[in-house]
């Protein structure tokens, strides 16, 4: 079981290598290899999820592979850079999310007919790196895979996107590349700051891996927090660095304009991975490094963070209302919902953190589902433009129904995962910021407004478009829809599926930071 995470991400990497060497015209072979590899990884990720010891709040499924040793890295002591993996109650749900969304992104991409080999090569790299980002127990490992997602997404957008794909891909690269640089500075600063503090306190505090002070292992850093507290000034500076990176990564206002362009110009499979998974990385970073390692920094700027969250909630909601393209609408919905998560994280309450993780998973599943159905509708009607659609309930009842489930899930209807996420988020938010949280609830009303308005124009009323291919969902499309709907409703009806994993970790964080 120790190597499970490593195996989960090695399989798609191997598949990428194999795909690189098969003939160009062996399209079905590329599809087959990708499907099998993604499926194996999904099974591994599910095993990880099921096998996780819910009673423990520690990192589990450890694997460490040493890479290079740097002499005299800190205080004349060497530093071993390694690939280290492990998951805890915060990262495991997101690791599982990769498993669910990735297999369906692969299935969805069967509709890609040009340069299939290249498509699956980059998609396999992207999937492996997403597993790596959430499975990493090491700052270097984390950053390594984050950079890999950047490259893989860039090529997927640049080669397979829509009309303005080169513009969108470049924008994506510049924004996220810049965020990476800032994040790198933050990560290095974090490691050094903790190392220096550990060294200063080494006589009074027991450090398990002494005499080495500098460590990149996330689980080591997390256990530092128990005895070692960075000075307020250091935390403030580091926190602001992280905050900047997160704002760009999550496309929070005003750093958001790259996301709608990206979604509007990417193919559906890529959108599912970007919108469903990649867009959750930034907030994961904020929980992991902001809340857990820089609690005083977050506390100091909590109001600012919550305010930024509220701005994104409202801005995203209004922009979604004006969106003319389903993909832009989904992009702004995401920005709005991630704003809710930002407020909840700033609340520093256990329930808020729990709700934040719930919302990341819920939003990931629902975004993927909505992209999937919208893509399937566009296959048949040839358009993503909302006002050109209409009356689809008639010709496409199944797709329309699933689309409605996804929309209502995003609205936060009880019985879907969106609801319990919002309850937890808001309980946390109201406990700390009653006024801001009240303003944030406007997002709940607006979500109903823009999503149902779009649904009305898409599926209700008289049929507007002569669907090019009027067949409703076919067999291969049923699988992703059924599984995603089942998960969304499953978590909604029995949230302990997720709660049993998250709850302990959220409680532990709150106890540690005194929230």
């Amino acid at each position, binding site marked *: 079981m120790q190597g499970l995470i490593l195996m989960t991400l090695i399989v798609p990497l191997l598949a990428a290598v194999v795909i690189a060497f098969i003939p160009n015209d062996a399209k079905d072979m590329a599809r087959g290899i990708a499907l099998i590899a993604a499926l194996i990884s999904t099974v591994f990720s599910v095993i990880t999820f099921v096998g996780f010891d819910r009673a423990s709040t520690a990192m589990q499924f450890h694997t460490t592979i040493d890479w290079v040793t740097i002499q005299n890295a800190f205080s004349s002591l060497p530093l071993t850079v390694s690939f280290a993996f492990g998951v805890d109650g915060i990262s495991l749900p997101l690791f599982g999310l990769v498993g669910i969304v990735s297999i369906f992104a692969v299935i969805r991409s069967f509709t890609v007919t040009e340069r299939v080999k290249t498509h699956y090569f980059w998609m396999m790299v992207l999937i492996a790196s997403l597993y790596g980002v959430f499975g990493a127990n090491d700052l270097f490992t984390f950053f390594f895979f984050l950079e890999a997602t950047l490259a893989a997404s860039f090529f997927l957008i640049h080669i397979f996107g829509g009309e303005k794909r080169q513009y969108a891909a470049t924008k994506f690269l*510049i924004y996220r590349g810049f965020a990476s640089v800032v994040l790198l500075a933050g990560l290095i600063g974090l490691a050094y700051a903790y190392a220096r503090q550990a060294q200063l306190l080494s006589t009074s505090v027991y450090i398990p891996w002494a005499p080495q002070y500098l460590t990149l292992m996330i689980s080591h850093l997390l256990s530092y927090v128990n005895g070692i507290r960075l000075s307020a000034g250091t935390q403030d500076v580091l926190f602001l660095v992280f905050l900047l990176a997160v704002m760009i990564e999550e496309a929070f206002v005003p750093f958001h304009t790259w996301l709608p362009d990206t979604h509007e110009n990417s193919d559906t499979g890529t959108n599912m991975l970007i919108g469903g998974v990649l867009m959750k990385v930034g907030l994961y970073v904020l929980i992991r490094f902001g809340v857990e390692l820089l609690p005083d920094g977050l506390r100091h700027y909590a109001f600012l963070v919550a305010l930024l969250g509220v701005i994104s909630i409202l801005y995203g909601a209004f*922009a979604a209302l*004006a969106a003319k393209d389903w993909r832009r609408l989904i992009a702004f919905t995401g920005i709005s919902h991630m704003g809710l998560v930002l407020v909840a994280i700033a609340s520093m309450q256990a329930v808020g953190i729990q709700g934040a993780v719930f919302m990341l998973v819920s939003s990931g599943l629902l975004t993927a589902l909505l992209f999937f159905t919208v893509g399937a509708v566009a296959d048949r009607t040839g358009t993503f433009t909302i006002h050109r659609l209409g009356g689809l309930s008639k010709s496409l009842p199944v797709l329309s129904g699933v689309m409605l489930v996804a929309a*209502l899930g995003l609205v936060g209807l*009880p019985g879907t995962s969106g609801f319990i996420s919002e309850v937890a988020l808001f309980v946390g938010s109201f406990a700390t910021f009653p006024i801001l949280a009240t303003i944030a609830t406007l997002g709940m*009303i607006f979500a109903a407004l823009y999503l*149902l308005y779009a649904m*009305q124009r898409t599926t209700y009323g008289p049929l507007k478009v002569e669907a090019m291919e009027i067949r409703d969902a076919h067999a291969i499309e049923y699988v992703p829809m059924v599984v995603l709907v089942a998960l969304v409703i499953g978590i909604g009806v029995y*949230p302990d599926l997720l709660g049993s994993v998250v709850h302990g970790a959220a409680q532990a964080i709150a106890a540690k930071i005194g929230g």
Partner: protein
Amino acid sequence: MVAITWLVPALPLVAYLILLATGKRISETLTSAIATIAVAISFILSIIIFIKVAASGPIAPFVVPWLAFGSHEITMGIEVTSLNAMMIVVVSLVSTLVLWYSRSYMRGDERFSRFFQYLSIFVFSMLGLVVSPNLLQFYIFWELVGMTSYLLVGFWYFKPEAATAAKKAFIVTRIGDVGLFIGMILLYLAVGSFNFNDIYAFISAHLMGQSATVFGMSAAGFATLTALLVFLGAVGKSAQFPLHVWLPDAMEGPTPVSALIHAATMVAAGVYLVARMFPLFHASPAASETVAIIGGITAILAATIGLTQHDIKRVIAYSTMSQLGYMMLALGVGAYVSGVFHLMTHAFFKALLFLAAGSIIHAVDTQDLFAMGGLRKYMPVTHLTFLAGALALSGIPPFAGFWSKDDILGAAFSSHHYFVYALGLIAAFFTAFYIFRVYFLAFGGTYKGDKHPHEGGIAMVVPLSVLGILATIGGFFNAPFAPFLGRFLQDQGPIGYDPSANVWLMIISAIIGLLGIWLAYTLYGKEFKGDKVAKRMGFLYQLSFHKFYFDEIYHYVIVVPVFFLAQLLEFIDRWIVDGIVRLLGEIGYTGGISLKYTNNGQIQTYGLVSALGLAILVLIAVGIGGVL
């Protein structure tokens, strides 16, 4: 007992799942039979539970763990208080009759099975709502009934009006729901639990006194705030002023839906919520006063609009709003039993009126009152049952509505709420007038259409008759001389304010009702001079006919600005926020283009630039006092 209590909501859910699985593969008869029988069994079980509760008191909550939540545990389960026991009987009874009726009404509809699926899931949600032991579970089902309402109002999705009405209903009630959501969270943060019983305990321990501060405000302030937030949810769901605009439009749904969801059950859930949270309202006189006044305003506002509408379903919809206003009024003045009693009788006679209207629409294919007439001859059962419903609604003794409405007016009067009493009394006059206006227009005179109207068959006649009987005798459940319901509901001790009957007030309201009927008879029954009178009323008529222009006002004050803001923001986003981004990109690009001319290949230039750069770096290093 717990075992069969579970079955009450579970059976409709099972019916839903069966219908979902079988879909169009089974016949219409079988489809409707599965749904109807499942709910009928729920009804029988509800009766058993009701008797059990009457005999040996409420059934304590039975719960299972659901989610570890912060430092608390959320549970889900089932609880049958006296109020719940009455509600499950009313809901399952009306549901059974409406499902039975729908078999005939929806015959031949392309989505017949889908209709029964939606209705089954609605009945499940409504019963689940009623037996919830905690506010969170209540809220879950509250939203689910809202969703089924959305699906059923938009059932004929190809009609643009239906699609718009469905969306409007969802969004307007959502505004109220967010209020309830906030109230629920604030209560949770104060109490540490969603359980009703824990909330009650907290209220009597912390909110009834003067001393403590709760959540950073005074106890009284907290009680008022949360009570008003909870009430906001009820205002949305029960279509109270100012969130009432969705209910008339919701009449775009099939008529059985109007009868079940938009008259008897879901819209009454708001009243049920206020009744369920009665201790909270009891703790805040200000909030109670607000409930009474909003209820009174809604009662008279809706009754006024109902006077002039042409569409038979809309008149009854406004009547529903108005009657819900009475119930709120009752709860607001503290008359718990009266409010709940009226909820029950109203469920019977309003479902009856809608089903009778459906029977008419089914027969004459129009909803326009002025295209009907003379139906007394063609549809005797519909005529008689409608008459019973109309008399009940008008508050004519001994029909059901008389006892309950009179209870409410009596309570308002004797608790010195003279203003709301006056509102209620005037509304009662209007009520009798508008419903008998409908009666005379539809059943009196001669038939104006060219169809051959006839009764809709056994499946429509029997439910009408059952409801007709209930509308006639239902009031005796709590008549002043034998207040069974009052004793039943207050089994655990008195709740709220239960005034003794006042014979003079009863006589006044009966006379008021008769006056309304007489006026309707003069204008629409004896001879037709309604339109002349309407013309003479001029401005007042226009105000009522155009529903006080609420839709227009909301459109220009809220909808238009919101969409304008969205468009404005879209413009700013595209041309200013993203414009700056593109400008920066442009500068970088142009910068690159011009800088490349500096690569002129001359070592001297490179050397000069490098030296300059080094100098700057040194200066910076000196400035900050060290390299690192």
